[in-house]
């Protein structure tokens, strides 16, 4: 978080014009909602919604050593990426704790785009730069000659939007023409758009089909308004961070800073599938091997309240049979389910699917059940 005045994305004026409620988030002034979180959530589930994600960071890593080096910096196996494809992955500290969760795209033979969390962009950049040079005491394999790998923070140059919802395929063709195919899941393409070039990735944070589009900051207003105009026929609505949070929580996608932190590792968070422990070296590997061997002391679980009642919120205590066993990290009333849902770190012995837990809310406890993810499934 920054002490300075929050930054404005290139779409700030558009949000204000649309009547958005603007709030500081991760050092940026962002729209939390335009009309209502419930309405915006349902628009994404049933039609199509557009989110400003210009606050997210873009780091470019390139050079003859880029691939090998990123495979040491990140947990997933970047060797599995063909040009034009991306993967969800983690940037860990030496203790295995999560500095950031991100998507790494291979946008050229020796060129990678890392799309990172707004609040972590500067930290990620400093961390990566530190490891690029032979640091004192750094293990031999981690060292990377600065001559063979360049890393640039391009966050200020790019704007971005996420367009999410079942209407995406039709809207995509309305925007890019009938002849351009939607990229496959996790792939990224650079179709022309109104005399400029944009990058379109088939990804998202809502559980609906959708894309994330990145463009030069100076093209942001043009693209945003074109999407709103062409999207009218499909019921598009601008959506804020409030709906982004409820949508991702219904899918049990973790939020960095709430469910993920430098004190938590991907195995505790139930995200081991994005860690390739067969890679010989990556930062945090030793710590994760130990966690895997001993079992994590706590696990991130998702739960559903048993009764209609107050929604769970971050930091509420979790009990089982009167014993405190954990703490809520994310909680809300799910607009899609019209029911209280959340995620919590719970001691491993109690973190079983189907287990009954109690959430303490203002001095009273309310029963909940640990469930499989996702909490919301399309019917």
């Amino acid at each position, binding site marked *: 978080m920054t002490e300075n005045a929050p930054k404005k994305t290139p779409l700030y004026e558009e949000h204000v014009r649309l009547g958005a409620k603007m709030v500081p988030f991760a050092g940026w002034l962002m729209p939390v909602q335009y009309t209502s979180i419930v309405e915006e959530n349902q628009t994404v589930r049933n039609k199509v919604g557009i989110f400003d994600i210009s606050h997210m960071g873009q780091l470019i890593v390139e050079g003859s050593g880029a691939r090998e080096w990123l495979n040491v910096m990140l947990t997933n196996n970047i060797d599995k990426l063909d040009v034009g494809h991306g993967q969800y992955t983690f940037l860990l500290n030496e203790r295995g704790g999560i500095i950031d969760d991100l998507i790494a795209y291979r946008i050229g033979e020796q060129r990678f785009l890392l799309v990172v969390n707004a609040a972590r962009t500067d930290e990620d950049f400093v961390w990566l730069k530190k490891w690029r040079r032979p640091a004192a005491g750094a293990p031999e394999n981690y060292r990377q000659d600065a001559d063979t790998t360049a890393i640039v923070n391009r966050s200020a140059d790019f704007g971005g939007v996420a367009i999410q919802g079942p209407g995406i395929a039709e809207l995509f063709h309305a925007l890019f023409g009938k002849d351009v195919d939607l990229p496959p899941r996790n792939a990224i393409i650079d179709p022309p758009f109104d005399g400029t070039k944009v990058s379109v990735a088939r990804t998202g944070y809502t559980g609906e089909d959708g894309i994330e589009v990145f463009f030069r900051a100076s093209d942001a207003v043009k693209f945003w308004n074109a999407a709103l105009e062409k999207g009218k026929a499909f019921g598009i609505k601008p959506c804020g961070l409030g709906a982004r949070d409820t949508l991702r929580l219904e899918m049990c996608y973790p939020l960095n800073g709430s469910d993920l932190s430098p004190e938590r590792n991907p195995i505790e968070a139930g995200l081991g599938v994005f860690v390739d422990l067969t890679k010989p070296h990556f930062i945090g590997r030793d710590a994760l091997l130990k966690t895997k061997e001993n079992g994590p002391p706590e696990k991130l679980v998702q739960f559903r309240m048993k009764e209609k009642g107050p929604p769970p*919120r971050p930091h509420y205590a979790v009990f089982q049979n009167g014993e405190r066993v954990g703490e809520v990290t994310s909680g809300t009333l799910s607009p899609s389910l019209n029911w209280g849902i959340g995620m919590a770190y719970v001691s491993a012995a109690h973190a079983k699917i189907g287990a009954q837990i109690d959430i303490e809310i203002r001095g009273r406890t309310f029963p909940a059940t640990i469930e499989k993810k996702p909490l919301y499934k399309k019917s």
Partner: protein
Amino acid sequence: MNVPDDLLYTETHEWARREGDKVRVGITDHAQSELTDVVYVELPKMDRQANAKEAIAVVESVKAASDIYAPVRGTVIEVNRALEADPGLINREPYGQGWIFVLKIDNADDLKQLKDAEAYRKQIS
């Protein structure tokens, strides 16, 4: 924003309608529009005593929980059970069916501490 002339207001966005030796209390149109999507209301306990500015109820939106304060010292003699089934009443009719509780006032002079409509309009403008 609707700020009816015949009500009294608090800095914390409650309204109070005097009904003899009682006041009916809810949250203002401005407050409900800031919260949007009220999804849960925790009503105060019947017969509880409350001091002015004491938190005695909670209104929750999708995003957050907000305390609701007693505008004056008194005793809770009525609560709006309809909000348990339909908390959205607060959004739809903040000054009508969306009322939250009724207090029997200890001292009618305390009402002088509250804002009139004009002062509240100034506060939220």
